């Protein structure tokens, strides 16, 4: 939980938006209501994921992953960025739009109507998955031989 607390508000909403996937499509009408231009149209590429063993060792390349990124500018002035995994260009564009809106004047409105529901949904999905996994947990123990 400490990692969560150290994140800035923007990092938190970027995380929610990046994981939103198709759930973002239901907000399409609201997000695209105001006029905007694409500064960098959605484009798909690869990034090298690097890691450290135990978080402290020498950095090594885990592997490449597909990433789609997008940058949009609202006519009101704010610029939104997005980086998502996979090749869903619509998702990248909507996530960038949401980032732009969240940096504008209506931040509280967008947090309440977009980010919080999505976050709740993602948390529920996660805890449901955790519960499913926990239910199939097998505890190994050694039988004490009764002589």
């Amino acid at each position, binding site marked *: 939980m400490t990692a969560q607390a150290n994140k800035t508000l923007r990092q938190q909403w970027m995380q929610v938006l990046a994981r939103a996937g198709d759930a973002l499509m239901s907000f399409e009408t609201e997000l695209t209501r105001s006029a905007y231009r694409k*500064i960098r*149209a959605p*484009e798909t590429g690869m990034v090298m994921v690097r890691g450290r063993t135990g978080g402290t060792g020498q950095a090594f390349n885990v592997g490449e992953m597909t990433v789609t990124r997008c*940058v949009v500018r609202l006519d009101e*002035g704010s*610029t939104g960025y997005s980086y998502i995994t996979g090749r869903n260009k619509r998702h990248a564009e909507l996530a960038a739009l949401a980032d732009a809106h969240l940096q504008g004047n209506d931040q509280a409105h967008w947090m309440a109507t977009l980010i919080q529901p999505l976050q709740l949904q993602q948390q529920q999905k996660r805890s449901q998955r955790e519960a499913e996994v926990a239910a199939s947990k097998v505890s190994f123990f050694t039988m004490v031989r009764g002589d």
Partner: protein
Amino acid sequence: MNSNDLKPAFDNPVSGSRQSFRLALKAMSEPGLSHELRLVDALDTLAPASYALALTLLDSDTKVWLSPALDTPVIRANLAFHCACPVVEQPQDADFALMLASETGVIASLNAGTDRDPDQSCTALIQLDSFEGGVPTVWQGPGIETQRQVCLPVNQAFWQTRQAVSAFPRGIDMFFIAGEQIMALSRSTQVNFQVEN
């Protein structure tokens, strides 16, 4: 970098850069002919065709030098964002140099390549107001069937500087830009001032 300075690039990055690269090749293979390159809007003091060429030719492997008139925060921010090209302070380090017609004195200090690696030379992108109104010059050489008369509005010192840096195969290739028009002058083109009969 202020994200409010960012401007859009090509509508379609792939076909935009291909079209503009094809046109740059065509221009360089036929020195003295002007071609229209209308793919993007102007960027601050950078003309539309200059911006299109920059988007096409510059990337993280090409060092670029900006003349004082073109070294604005908006241009720097957009070149960094769209091309990711390093901007160098010294003109001799540059692979591409962007300048106005009044700033061509710097060509003397650009890298003209070596006899072994003439391809390592710098390419100059020179922004003019138009391709007309200068001293008439006669161009001859590869890509020109007989000769071609061009009246670029550049001063006499420019032609002297070009002469001074040219020692074939060394030399500077140049693109001239006026608004949405481009014209090339390759290092192999001979420029004379008198019309030969």
